[in-house]
């Protein structure tokens, strides 16, 4: 008598709980999406607003209430600022500095890290200890001493002077050393047995094995050089030689009244780096999270 009703109630309870679980899942999912969207608005909002300002020539950003959504769309700000600022020149400057910086960083971190990871020699642990200690002792005056040093070398105003102080970083050496350590010793030994020279072993056998590390350094340094503005301003005496980020501070000072131009110029300057980031996201993320573990 009791049995069937018991069974029914258990069954209905189960159905109930399954339904409530699904309901809970839907609720958590929607709460999750709402949070994600709000956060996206917070992080991307300033960019979207700047984009909207750049598309409305003649709109005053300081009008009250301020313009938020584009009520009309015109590209004149872009064409005008492109013609006026000589963007191709500044992009060219940025590319020269970035290419020079990347080449030096890559060459120097590869050659410095390789022996630290793969060769046996007296003083290896000493070199390593000194490198570690430079990471712990911060140099707050580095900028001043770098300026003096670059002056002694007679490199003020040159692109070599811009990239030389950051031509190799201890961080990159550590990252590269970590990658080299993952390459089996047999590879180097087999090269030696074949009678290959050290340089040949390095270039032909070892470097191809550490491509992931190379990719990470290229990406991180690309971002760093593209966005760098302080040191170029200090070293370069002629604003015509400025890279894009530095030129942007200059543009801001020169045309403070022309909001549309500044907005368009800023959008143009951040667009390349955002595109590079979006296309290389995967490697980039692996790189920065790998850096913590290393």
């Amino acid at each position, binding site marked *: 008598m009791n049995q069937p009703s018991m069974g029914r109630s258990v069954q209905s309870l189960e159905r109930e709980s399954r339904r409530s679980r699904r309901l809970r899942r839907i609720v958590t999912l929607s709460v*999750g999406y709402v*949070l*994600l969207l709000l*956060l*996206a608005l917070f*992080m991307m909002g*300033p*960019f979207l607003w*700047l984009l909207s*300002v750049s598309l409305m020539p003649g709109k005053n950003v*300081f009008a*009250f*209430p*301020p313009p*938020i959504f584009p009520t009309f769309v015109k590209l004149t700000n872009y064409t005008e600022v492109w013609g006026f600022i000589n963007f191709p020149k500044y992009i060219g400057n940025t590319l020269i500095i970035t290419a020079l910086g990347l080449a030096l960083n890559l*060459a120097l971190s590869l050659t*410095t890290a*390789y*022996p*630290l990871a793969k*060769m046996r*020699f*007296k003083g290896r642990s000493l*070199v390593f200890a000194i490198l570690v200690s*430079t990471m*712990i*002792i*911060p*140099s*707050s*005056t*580095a*900028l*001043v*001493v*770098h*300026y003096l040093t670059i002056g002694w070398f007679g490199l003020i105003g040159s692109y070599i002077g811009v990239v*030389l102080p950051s031509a190799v970083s*201890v961080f990159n*050496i550590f990252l590269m050393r970590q990658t080299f350590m993952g390459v089996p010793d047999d590879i180097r030994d087999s090269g030696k047995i074949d009678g290959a020279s*050290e340089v040949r072993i390095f270039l032909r056998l070892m470097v191809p094995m550490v491509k992931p590390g190379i990719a990470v350094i290229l990406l991180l340094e690309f*971002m760093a050089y*593209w966005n760098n*503005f*302080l040191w170029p301003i200090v070293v370069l005496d002629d604003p015509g030689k400025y890279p894009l980020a530095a030129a*942007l*501070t200059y543009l*801001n000072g020169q045309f403070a009244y022309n909001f549309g131009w*500044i907005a368009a110029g*800023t959008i143009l*300057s*951040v667009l390349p*780096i*955002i595109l590079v*980031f979006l296309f290389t*996201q995967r490697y980039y*993320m692996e790189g*920065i999270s790998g850096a*913590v*573990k290393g």
Partner: protein
Amino acid sequence: MRRRTLASDALPAWSFMAPGLLVIGVFVLFPILYSIPLALTNYSVLGETDFVGLDNFVKAFKDDSFIASLRNSMTYVIVVPVLQLLSILMAILVNSRIPGIKAFRAAYYIPVVTSMVAVALMWNWLLSQNGLVNYILLELGIIHEKIGWLSTSSTALYVLMFITLWKGLGYYMMLYLAGLQAIPADLYEAAIVDGASAAQRVRHITIPLLRPYVFFCSLISLMGAIRVFDEMFVLTNGGPGNATLTSSLYIYQEGITKLNYGYASALGLIVSVIVGVVSIVVFRVNQKGGVNPY
């Protein structure tokens, strides 16, 4: 045999490392070492250079601007716990496999790859008297009159912290995400089988296993906060008054703008000692906690 290999590697090892170590020596080691004798002189672009003993240090501690800058740099540390806590929450939020999650992660990361110049420009407009932020806060009834966020002494430093926070969230989120994803899924499954609630799982699995990441991120975030420079350099130049003057900015003003190399070096040494002591303390505290970060 072993001995011969040891000896035979020394020549190629040092030849490989020579260029990299030379650059490290000149631009990393030398600035640390050279700032000590430099700090004991009155070396500047004007006049003769004399040994002045500890005069620069005595002057520093009587220098109101320097004291104010130290106080501001220390105050800036407030941003660290907020930044870390919010980044952890964001990492937990984006640590799921729901559709579109990668686009959200990328969106949150875009402020990180954008140059500080562009970021400063956007927020400078948004935070001005007639800016969008005031408009929104007025509409929501949170404030009752327009506030010049960056031109008011009492708010300027905190507003810069907010910009640091906004630009840094994505970076630490990705690091913590890497930490969360390194936690084996079966730990959670086992906890669910044992009947642990969601809160208990966070308390007893997530938090302990994320600790090395929290330590690492807090340390780099702390170093960054004490030595913060870019935000005030592009937005306020230390003003209004000395409200946003930080020690790095003051060293820059003394060393690069006013070309007082000797005095700037002394200031830099004082800051280096403070940062060094703080990082040792953080390491000690962490060791007491019983977790080895490496």
